């Protein structure tokens, strides 16, 4: 049996299926909450400084379906979402919410996943380094720095990174992606946003990893590996690391979601046209369809990431059983 087959045989299909079933009412509840909040809000997207002529108001209402009763608007909206149509943007004329999401999401996703990768890689390294030297000066200094990483918010590190590297050393552009939309060409300028977003993750993951490796090194299977006469290096790399990294999986799913929402601030600081920026501008401008579209996309991402993390955990950890 190949390792892939073995992995597939460990996927808890019934559990996965049930979780997907639960995801449906979850998403519906989210859509409903977002919809009701929008409609409960005082003032509409088309309230301007001046009062519009009645005919114009009627025309706008008819165009966007505001003249229909509330439940009909709701059903229309849900129906549209189910077919993958988030409707027209109220504020960006001539653009649909789908187009805006298609513009913004790749940027947010790229920054988010790069930051998460950086966090996982560096965080694991630092955590293992510190954990294997428990209660030494090296351990204390790494953990001290990690604590600082948790305590200093991204909206402080972001401007400071700009101050040092863009304005001071002139290595990176101050803001934006240069020749957007060719992200691939300009990944160079994504370095600072990714680093700023990754710093707290590096800190959290290294603390998690340190605790995990300390616990693993005391477990029975490590004692067995040692008594077989394996070198310490082999014990750590082949036996301790895989076991110690398991808690990271259940951390990484929700953390990825948090990194994605956290990129709102990063996108604002670095002037990146990601989905987070669109969301904040949409909320400030009362561009309701855009805001709801963004919320639904993010909620969907969170549901999927959490599910993937749980299933992956079951596949990799033979002790886990979902009934």
């Amino acid at each position, binding site marked *: 049996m190949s390792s892939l087959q073995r992995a597939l045989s460990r996927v808890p299909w019934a559990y996965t299926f049930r979780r997907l079933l639960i995801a449906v009412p979850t998403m519906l509840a989210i859509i409903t909450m*977002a919809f009701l*909040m929008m409609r409960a809000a005082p003032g509409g997207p088309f309230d301007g400084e001046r009062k519009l002529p009645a005919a114009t108001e009627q025309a706008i209402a008819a165009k966007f379906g505001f003249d229909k009763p509330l439940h009909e608007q709701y059903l229309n909206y849900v129906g549209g979402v189910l077919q993958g149509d988030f409707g027209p943007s109220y504020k960006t004329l001539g653009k649909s919410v789908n187009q805006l999401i298609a513009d913004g999401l790749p940027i947010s996703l790229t920054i988010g996943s790069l930051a998460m990768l950086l966090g996982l890689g560096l965080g694991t390294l630092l955590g293992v380094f510190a954990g294997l030297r428990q209660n030494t000066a090296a351990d204390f200094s790494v953990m001290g720095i990690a604590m600082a990483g948790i305590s200093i918010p991204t909206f402080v590190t972001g401007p400071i990174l700009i101050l040092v590297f863009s304005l001071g050393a002139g290595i990176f552009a101050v803001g934006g992606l240069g020749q957007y939309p060719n992200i691939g060409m300009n990944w160079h300028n994504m370095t600072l946003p990714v680093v700023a977003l990754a710093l707290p993750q590096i800190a959290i993951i290294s603390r998690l990893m340190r605790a995990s490796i300390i616990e693993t090194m005391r477990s029975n299977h490590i004692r067995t590996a040692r008594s077989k006469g394996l070198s310490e290096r082999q014990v750590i790399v082949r036996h301790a690391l895989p076991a110690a990294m398991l808690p990271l999986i259940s951390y990484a799913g929700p953390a990825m979601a948090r990194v994605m929402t956290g990129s709102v601030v990063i996108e604002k*600081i670095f002037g990146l046209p990601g989905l987070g920026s669109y969301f904040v501008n949409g909320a400030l401008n009362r561009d309701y369809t855009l805001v709801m579209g963004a*919320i639904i996309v993010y909620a969907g991402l*969170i549901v999927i990431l959490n599910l993937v993390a749980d299933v992956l955990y079951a596949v990799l950890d033979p002790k886990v059983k979902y009934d």
Partner: protein
Amino acid sequence: MTEIKPLLDPTGRVEPVTQAIIGGRSLWDDARARLFRNKAAVVSMWILGVIILVAVFGPMVWVNDYKAISDARTIAPTLENWHILGTDIQGRDLLARLMIGLRISLTVGIVATAVSLVIGVTWGATAGYLGGRVDNFMMRIVDVLYALPFIFFVILLLTVFERNIVLIFAAIGAIEWLTMARIVRGQTLAIKGKEFIEAARASGVSRRAIILRHILPNVIGPVAVYVTLTIPVVILAESFLSFLGLGVNEPLTSLGVLISEGAKTMEEKPWMLLAPALTMAVTLLCLNFIGDGLRDALDPKER
């Protein structure tokens, strides 16, 4: 050969046992001793104490008012007029604003955490204690809410409705109770089935006493740890909102507002960013170190 000591004196004489020997040390005595051995936590407690004193009394005793506008705009730190941290764009004393901002941030942190504590403990303990179908239903709700991109809902709430500080408290508190509920429920469930509870029951301890003396102290530990670690998270969330321009209204301020104002002028006037940023970092560092120390103190398995 080692001499085997009889358990009881062969003469039948029993050593008089004094209270001092029996006295022993409770769970909490042990935890306190461990906490005070943790240097980082002790130093953090002192610094945090000073920070709290400054936040509470600083604005009352400081010569400059945080609202007083003057013509001395964005001046560098100087001894003139006691602007020892300089002034902001409207000529208001930065130190006075920093102290008010600190007060607001700490208040938001404590109040919102208290909100999440009340909801979370009640919800979690009820679910864990009742168990069965009720538990299942209550925790499903928590699962659904977990999928919400909450910070987005808070942003929406604050842009759609009037911004006010109570809404910020409620909104942030409503995010944080989910984890609290999970912790309390898990802890209640785990303890309900433990042998020492069974032993207490077998030796005739009343149900009330079991809950108060055996279950509650074991729930309080993780909750206390989570509370100390939630306060910095809440302070961060508030400043996150402030940074996006959704925080407290002028002329009040918070650390997040001050940081975002400082970030705009950091090129020429870096101290306007550094002062609030450092204050924030030190406060959060202290809270995190205390939370960590508390966790290590209450969970002796870790070390």
